[in-house]
């Protein structure tokens, strides 16, 4: 149990470092997602199952999904070229 805990925490910290050093945004989001999953296992080890479910659904699910969709959107905007955003 202790060993698993240690392993997960190390994994989380390594993920955090990896996110900050990767240049590619897609990769870093995927790493962030993995980190969230590891975090949800940590919540189970800390005897907080409610948190584990929420973290798995929110951190690894919704947040990462929103980040992916943002990247996609940015890509689309770039391909379309300039569309100015001024309006009043």
């Amino acid at each position, binding site marked *: 149990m202790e060993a698993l805990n240690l392993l997960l925490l190390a994994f989380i910290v390594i993920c955090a470092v990896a996110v*900050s050093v990767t240049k590619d*945004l897609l990769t*870093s989001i995927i790493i*962030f997602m993995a980190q969230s999953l590891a975090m949800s296992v*940590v919540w189970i080890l800390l005897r907080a199952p409610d948190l584990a479910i929420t973290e798995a659904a929110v951190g690894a699910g919704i947040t990462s999904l929103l980040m992916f969709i943002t990247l996609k959107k940015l890509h689309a905007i770039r391909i379309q070229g300039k569309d100015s955003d001024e309006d009043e």
Partner: protein
Amino acid sequence: MLNALTDHLEEVAALILFGIGFSNLLLNRNMIKKIIGFSMMDSAIYLFLASYGYIRGRLAPILPAETPAPSVTQYVNPLPAGLVLTGIVVSVSSTAIMLALTVRLYRRYHTLNIDEIAMRAKEADEA
């Protein structure tokens, strides 16, 4: 310092995570990276808070249906989990707002680099 590392494993990990998130936030000029830094900082704080509730050898705070005569010595502290649950939902909403702002910023200034955005905002102001 060393006994801090062994005695407070979770807290130390959480604080290192906090530091990494913080430096991510300050160092990276890229908006998406900044947002990830935020999320990391937030989850570090939650880890820190929840690890306080954990007590070795005790159960998750869910009572069995048959014997509702609980004693505090059986279960971990339930309050931090409640607080963290609140916090997680708060942090996902602020992440969503930051991402929406990023999309709009990119649509207007065509870059994710916050310095360049600042520069172009200034140019647009003076024009």
